[in-house]
Structures are given as C-alpha cells and as structure tokens.
C-alpha cells in the first residue's frame, strides 16, 4: 500500500493549540513539508513572534528563538550575519511585521539580508484579542475600532508587501492565502521559492499569507474562508509581487529591479 499523506518529519508530534479554522496550523504544516522536501530541517532557524504563534516552537522541530515584538528581522539579521550557513526565517503577524516592526523589516529587506519572512496577515491583533492591525480593512470592526475603521482617523490598510517590494534588496515577494486547497498549494510553492532565494544567496524574501482568524472575526471557519476570498483579497490582491531571482545574482553585480 502506498502512503500518500503523513506527518512531516519536521513537525513535532503535538496537538496544535490554535482555534478551529485558524490559518497558523496550515502554514506550520506547509513550512514543515517544505523543510522536509528541501531537506533543510537541520539548517533552518526560526524566529517566532510574540502573538498566537509564539508557541510555533512547540510544533516545528527545528532550532527556534523568541524575539521581541517587531524585532524579528533584526534578530534574524544578527543570526544570519554571525552564522551565514543557517537558513533563517521570521514568522510574523501583521501587527508585528507591519506596525511595530516596519523599520526592522524594510531595512533588513533593503540590506538584502539573506533571510525569509513568513508574514501572516489576518487583519487583526490575534493573541491580544482582536484589536485593529495596520492591515485591518476600512470600516472593519475590531475591539479598538468598535464603530468600524474610519480611514480619516485610523488610516488605511497597509500593503506591506508592496512597500517592501520597492527596495532593491528584496528579491522575492508573493502574496498568497490559505483559504482553499488551491491557494494552500500556491502558498507552499511560494514558501519554497522564498527559501530557495535564500539558499541561492540572492537577498530578502517575503511571503505574505492571508490567513483566517474566525475567533476574532466572529465568524465560523467556513465564513472566514469566504471572507478572505470576498473581502480581504480586494484590499490585498493575491499573486506575485516581485521576483528578481532570475535577474539578480549573488555577487551583487545585477540589481533586483
């Protein structure tokens, strides 16, 4: 009998603590599948964020170290600079990467740090209970925008991937989602490409993943999948945002744009 589905080697035998319908567990699974397939489990080092996925180290069977909120890209920079043989990635939410960690992210990207950011965009601060994130949609209700996000007062949803794509050190950026089998497959492919860019020593790579948060969105899992499809993707269109992996070479003779 042929085995067609198994627990990835890099995934620990532990039950996820995530809420039903949460995207984190899917992304964890995809990451570990990629680690197995690329045979890099003993080379990757992960920097999980403060947030729901701070406990990622309970699930990913790789070296991991916590970082302060927003500082993932700086910690990853230090680690990679000190030990360039490692494959270093940050796993960050939207509050982490697009609010408190904006400077760290943009500058790590601009230096072309050979690191990868897995950016989970669920439009809210999840662990703290559903406050407005930089990515919260216009008019969306959260615990700190109880009347809906008023763009005159609270600004607009931040398109972080597009911003990061402007800097020359960023070589691969794609926005995907984990709200359907097809999108999940595309996400896995993107994660793989992002790590490949790092292996090829080309520069900074980022995969933004639209991820459902049924609990804070006050929806059931199915509704949250549909909401990603019908609402989030309008503000955050899926697809490749930047791919300079073919034109750029690691010697820096050719730029990424």
């Amino acid at each position, binding site marked *: 009998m042929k085995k067609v589905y198994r627990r990835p080697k890099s995934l620990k035998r532990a039950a996820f603590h995530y809420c039903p319908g949460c995207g984190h567990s899917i992304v964890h699974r995809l990451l570990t599948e990629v680690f197995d397939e690329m045979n890099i489990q003993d080379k990757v080092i992960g920097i999980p964020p403060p947030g729901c996925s701070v406990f990622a180290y309970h699930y990913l069977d790789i070296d991991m*170290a916590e970082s302060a909120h927003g*500082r993932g890209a700086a910690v990853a920079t230090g680690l990679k*600079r000190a030990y360039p043989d490692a494959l270093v990635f940050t796993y960050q939410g939207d509050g982490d990467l697009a609010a408190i960690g904006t400077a760290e992210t943009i500058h790590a990207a601009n230096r072309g740090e050979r690191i990868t950011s897995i950016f989970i965009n669920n439009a809210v601060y999840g662990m703290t209970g559903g406050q407005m994130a930089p990515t919260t949609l216009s008019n969306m209700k959260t615990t700190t925008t109880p009347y809906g996000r008023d763009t005159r007062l609270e600004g607009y949803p931040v398109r972080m991937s597009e911003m990061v794509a402007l800097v020359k050190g960023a070589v691969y950026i794609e926005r995907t989602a984990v709200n359907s089998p097809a999108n999940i497959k595309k996400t896995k492919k993107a994660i793989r490409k992002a790590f490949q860019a790092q292996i090829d020593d080309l520069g900074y790579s980022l995969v933004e993943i639209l991820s459902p948060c049924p609990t804070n969105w006050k929806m059931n899992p199915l509704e949250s999948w549909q909401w990603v499809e019908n609402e989030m993707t309008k503000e955050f269109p899926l697809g490749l945002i930047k791919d300079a992996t073919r034109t750029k070479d690691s010697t820096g003779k050719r730029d990424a744009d």
Partner: protein
Amino acid sequence: MYGNAAIGEAAIRAGCQCYFGYPITPQNELTEYMATNLSRRKGCSFVQAESEVSAINMVYGASLAGVRTMTSSSSPGISLKQEGISYLAACELPAVIVNISRGGPGLGSISAAQSDYFQSTRGGGHGDYRTIVLAPSSVQELADLTHRAFDLADRYRIPVIILGDGMLGQMMEPLEFKYDAPSELPVRSDALRGAKGRPSRIVKTFTSRPTELEELNWSLFRRYRLIEKEETTYEIYLVEDAELVVVAFGAAARIAKGAIRNARANGLKVGMFRPITLWPFPYEKISELTQTTKHFLVFEMNMGQMIEDVKLAVEGKREISFYGRPGGVIPTPSEVLRVITRLYYQKGLKTEK
C-alpha cells in the same frame, strides 16, 4: 589612541565577531573603528543598523548563533536598547554593551556625564534582572575592561555593560594591548546553528506557567549571587590612614585623584575608593572602610546616584557628603580640591601636626 578606538581594538582582540551600531555622539569613533577594522575581517560582520533598537536585537541574534558580539551607543541610544538587554538577560545570552554616556535627561548634551548610573546598575529594562557594569577610568582600562567584559559575559551568560563617558571616549592616551586577536573565533557550544545531529533547541522565556518563570528568576539570581561573590572589583588609593575617603567612579575618579594628590601635598589625609564594578557594587569593602575613616565624600558627575549604594554600604555608621555636577559639566580637580578642603575643616578632620 582614542578611548573609543581602544574599546574597538580590544573587542577585536577579545574575539568579537559581530558589531552592530548606530551613530550617536560621543561614541561614533568606536562604530567607525569597527567599520574600518572589523567589517572586512574573515568571518566577522559589521552592520550600521537602522536604530539602536535594531542594533541590540542584531546583537541578540548574533549571540544566539554563539559568537562574541557587541554594540555601543550613548545615553539616549542606551535607553532604546533596554528592551533588547532585558531579552538578553532573560534568555541568558552573553553580549557586551558599551555606553559612552552623555548629559541627560532627554537629548541632553554631548559632553561627559554619569547620569546613567541608575539605568545601568538597576537593570534598566523591564523585569527582575541584573547586568554586570564595568566602569573604566582610563584608556588603558577601557581596553582591559573590554576584554574582561567579553570573558565575564561568556562565563556567566549575562549581558555586560561598559559604562564610560564622553571624556573617556574622546580622550587620547598611550596604552598597551595585553592580548593578540585569537586565530580562531570562539563559538559557544550551546549556539543555535540548526539541529544537525542533535535534537532541536528552543531559546525562549515566554511561558504560560508562572512557576516556570519563577524558576528562571531563581536561577538567574543564584548566578547573580555568585557574580557578587566572585567578580566585585575596586581600586583603593591612599585609604590606609585617610580621615576622609572620596568615593568616585569612572572619569570622576580621575578628577578626584588629581584633587587628592594636591590635598595630600597640603597635609590632608584624604584617600579614594573607586568601584570598578558598579554592579556588583563593592558594599563589603566600603563597609570595612567605615572602621578606619571618619567621613565619606561621594563625588559624581550627576545629582547623586551612586551615593545610594554608598549609603547602603555605610549603613549610617559614618556621615556621607555629596558633591556633584550634572548635565555634562566636567568639574576640575581644583574645584574638587576646594570641596575636599572645606569639608575637611568643617568636619573637624584636621589632624594635629
């Protein structure tokens, strides 16, 4: 050699592999020294970060990878680094942080001050932790203590702060380096370098179980007790027969020494006590001095911060006076001599000839 450059050279000779900085006066020569002399060394890395916050987090990352690493800044920048220092302390990661301090509060001034004593010796960031604090008072000592800082950081797995000031950083003095750069850069055995041939490792403090965090705090404090026992250092100068002992650290101690030399020439029995480790603070030795000396004068380039530790050490057994100049004003030896002389006669310390 400039004080700032001496720190940089000593760090390289101590095997510092990664330096992360951000421009701020009066420590820029150190960052520039590392850009010139560390950045192109084999296996080494230099990054001018986007902020002090990022620089200290890069230090955290490099320390995770098991290498000797350092950052430097000056007072306002050190405030920004406190978050990262707390994380380093919590995760028991060695690192060296240099504070070439300046006048505060706020943006303050770029001239030398000692107003960061509280911030340095009381932890500085959030949570229950300590950092070792070394206070050099010459360019030679900047170099020597930089080397010692890396050793202490590794031995006790703790962030170590070198608290200098703008005067020491900018000062030029001859010095001798006692070590050559190591041919192989040291790597700690517990480094995070990918789980090759061993189970995966996690470096973290966050926990949902308060008892686990309590245990971490207990283990940190057991180590702090050990550091207090083993690593407390100080300098004593002419205290044996002193009626008056001036307690001063860093640049202030240099100024005090000049004043004391002249006071002695005038026949006043004055000595000096200089803590070299500000944490652990040499409480015991000061306590011992209460048996032989009558009066203490604490002299600082601030409004009185270390005096609190001196009071804890003296335990009310002797009277303590204070003289300080805040805000980046550097007092002269003759000014301190006037203070010493006035105090000496006011307190009736004059010995019969």
